[in-house]
């Protein structure tokens, strides 16, 4: 498909006719069925839906963590679905950040080292300084030397947010970022996530069950049985950039 240059510049993420089928004991199972989507630079979208609706599958395909059975995905000007695994990895290192429900910190590395990791993978010049600064921004400057097992759930997620933003990605994917946290801690973490998002002007793709969290985004995409059921523009009062 020929997408005009101007549109490419405006669009951070685009999916076209994404279909994902898997083989199950009951036969072929369609998890995503011809899903198309565009996300503009700086836009914050929330993907909501019940368990098994296909939210996480869509997130995985948009982030290039998995390949669709058919359909295409562009991240900025690059067609993710045309790249091999190393190509997608290189693109992720350059442009993408992640926050996961189960934090995914490396237990053998300290908080600071966890934040340094993506910088080191991208051969950043000053990983230590940048990581220290990122940790300070999430309020954990004093816990840099702690290992994940010495941190609370909320602190772990804050480290994960610092790690996600430290490379200043153009798109940040968050998969149920508050799913493992109590309400109060979850709110604190979300405050930090959105504050950082504003600060860096990052495009945010957020998967959640939590309507309250979704409503803070610019647009809510409801999914059901592998289809986009509804897209709802939302004026959350949050202002990007």
């Amino acid at each position, binding site marked *: 498909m020929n997408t005009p240059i101007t549109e490419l510049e405006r669009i951070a993420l685009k999916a076209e006719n994404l279909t994902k089928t898997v083989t199950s004991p009951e036969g072929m199972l369609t998890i995503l069925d011809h899903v198309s989507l565009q996300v503009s630079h700086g836009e914050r979208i929330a993907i909501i839906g019940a368990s098994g609706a296909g939210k*996480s599958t869509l*997130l*995985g395909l948009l*982030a290039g*963590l*998995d390949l669709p059975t058919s359909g295409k995905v562009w991240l900025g000007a690059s067609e993710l679905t045309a790249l091999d*695994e*190393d190509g997608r*990895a*290189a*693109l*992720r*290192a*350059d442009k*993408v950040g*992640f926050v*996961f429900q*189960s934090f*995914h910190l*490396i*237990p*053998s*590395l*300290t908080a600071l*080292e966890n934040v340094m*990791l*993506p910088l*080191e*993978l*991208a*051969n950043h010049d000053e990983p230590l300084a940048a990581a220290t600064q990122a940790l300070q921004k999430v309020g954990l400057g004093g816990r840099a030397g702690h*290992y994940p*097992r010495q941190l609370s*759930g909320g602190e772990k997620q804050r480290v994960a947010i610092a790690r996600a933003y430290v490379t200043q990605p153009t798109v940040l994917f968050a*998969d149920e970022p508050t799913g493992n946290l109590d309400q109060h801690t979850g709110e604190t973490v979300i405050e930090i996530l959105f504050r950082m998002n504003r600060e860096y002007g990052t495009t945010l793709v957020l998967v959640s069950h939590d309507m309250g969290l979704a409503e803070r985004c610019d647009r809510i995409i409801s999914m059901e049985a592998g289809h986009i059921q509804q897209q709802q523009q939302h004026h959350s009062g949050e202002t990007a950039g």
Partner: protein
Amino acid sequence: MAWRLLLRDWKSGELTVLSLALIIAVTSLTAVAFLTDRVGHAVELRAAESLAADLRLGSSQALSESYLEMAGQAGLRSAAMTTMPSVVFEGDNSTLSAVRAVTPAYPLRGKLKVSSKLLAPALETSDIPAIGEAWATTRLLARLGADTGSIITVGKASFRVSKVLDFRPDQGWQFVDLAPTLLINMADLEGTGLVQPGSRVSYRMLFAGSREDVLGFKPRLEELLAAGEQLSDIEDTNPQIRSAMDRSGRFLNLASLVSVLLAAVAVAMAARRYALRHRDRIALLKCLGSQQTFILRLNLLQLVMLTIIGAVAGTVLGYFAQEALAWIARDLIAQELPAPGVSPVLLGLVTALFILCGFALPDLLQMGKTPVLRVLRHDVEPPPMRYGISYLAGIAAVLALLQWMVRDVGLVLGIAAGAAGTFAILGLAGWLLVKTTGRFRGVAGVAWRYGLANLNRRGRESVVQVVAFGLGLMVLILLTLVRNDLMDTWRDSLPLDSPNQFIINIQPHEVPQMQQFLVENNMDVPRFVPLVRARMTAINGQDVNQISFEDPQGERWAKRESNLSFADEIQIGNQLTEGEWWQPGTENHEISVEVDFGRELGVKMGDEVSFDIAGEPLKATVTSFRTVEWDTFRPNFFMVFSPAALEGFPASYITALYAGSEDDAKVIELMRQFPSVTVIDLEASLAQVRDVMDKASLAVQAVFVFTLFAGLAVLWAAVQSSLDERSFESAILRTLGASRNRVLSGVAVEFLAIGLLAGLLASTGAGLAAWHLAVNVYELQYHFSPVIWLTGPLLGMVFVGASGLIATWRVVTHSPVSVLRGG
């Protein structure tokens, strides 16, 4: 970058399990190698005592003093001995004696034993007789009716007998050693006037030093030797000791082989656990943008680092472990062990590399294939590992390592086939257990159901554990019960009633009379073996003096006088390796040749060998080769002829019989009735060979202690590999209200079941392995022991059950919340 990540990983202890397993492996292996090296060398040295030196130069002509100078320059110690037969007088009594004049350093290996008077206890000494004194053997003193303090005359000189000579390390039992020894100081030799032109004097120079110095000196000396000068080392002498050393070497190697296999199993299990625990990290690294090459580099770097750590730490620990062991056994080893060589260091490095490449690399590479999607969906796994293909590398690595250590393709393949068969049988039986246990789930309480359900659900893992425990137990049983059985069988092959009296120079007409004598005195009537002295003249018509022998030993055999024998039937303890034994009564002139002798001589089947027997020529054809059990101490010959070939030539007979201390009077009576025969008491030589065997078996036991540690490492790794899963399950069970005891009971049922089957299989395997080793490798008779069948299952249940409970104790003492929250 990969390096830094790894260092941090290392610091936080994530590699501990794997590297510890590897270190244990390398430690046990290098400790074995260091100790084998040292004890092996000590056994060699002990064996060298039968030469009283590492190298012995002998001649019937005076030896050049320049050899001594050369030895000194090469860093070797040296001594000289001059021996001649002479009549010794004490008052009116006289007897023939072998007068041996020695220099102060004699003997260079081993110790003389002397007593202050007849029948007094003998003590070791480092001295030699002072000038003007002589030490005489009990036999000599008895014949002279003398004791210490007596004055004896030898040639023109007189000596005061100051000590009774009880033992010389090189006393041997060859025909030249028949006359009782009188030991004097070399400085006194000239005064006796015994060394005259034409007198029968034998000159010896003895050399000893470090292994390297001896090995360097030997070829240089060989180049300079004049005709008639003969150089011997331990390799050339005493076939009994060679045979004993060969066997002990095989025992030690077996211990090393078992360590290698156990180490590999332990490392494979630890690597598997490490890989399982690190799939998430690989997925995350990929998610954060790591490329395949980076992941690969990370894995390879891990491997290199582990190799270095494993090799260095293991080798250092192995060295100290071996030092500690040598210290513990210091009283038993009774002599200072020589320093170890450097080859174990190389072995440590090669071992670490081979084991890691063969057994850890497949899992590490598999871990690298973890899909990045795992960051979102925890149930996404790497593609299933093709264990068959990936472990082919491991098996190849182990085979290569074994071959490098043992250098015996047959033995390596035999062990490999045994191991493969064991794995297959254990695997099959484990699978059957898993299938069967399901039926018993309902018979008892919850704990029972939980334990057996665990076995069933972890199908493949359970089989792997049964195989691992089974193998570990099999080795433990092999090391303890079977080892003792084998050692006993081995020692029994040289029983206490081995012949200890050699009777030689029996004339043909005396044979029936002597048989009659033995029958009348209620003694066993041994076989009387004919002996014909001959000189080899030609092989296939070519003069032996013209033949260029590939093996210098073969040349010596060919050019010296041979002892030939003949028989209609093959001797007990001899086994044909090639060709056929002749038909009794054949008219053909045939020879059966001892296989090593034949190889050194370079003769083949069908070769025609010519001899000169007291001026008469004889030709015979080689029609068979055979092995000989030298350490049975029965009369054996390198060359045995068909009777038709040798009958009619002048022969004497020899025989060997056992006489206990209660038979002393009978032996003396025998000597009185047959004054022309010579009776040689082999008791001393036998004791020496037994001592060598005792030292060798001690080394084997010591070596097996380390292999035992390796076996424990396997058990430990096996329990560790399932610990994460168990933690999680137990946390869930306890959350659901199960008591600690109930969870523990479930775990106990599971481990007891695994232990029972593993033990049963281990008993079967150990029994079969022992039978194979005994019959095919060590050529011993083996009897199946019922104790093994009881011990296996019992040991399995106790050991696996206890290990499992101890290892999983943490699971039930930890708060379930911390486990469920992921720590």
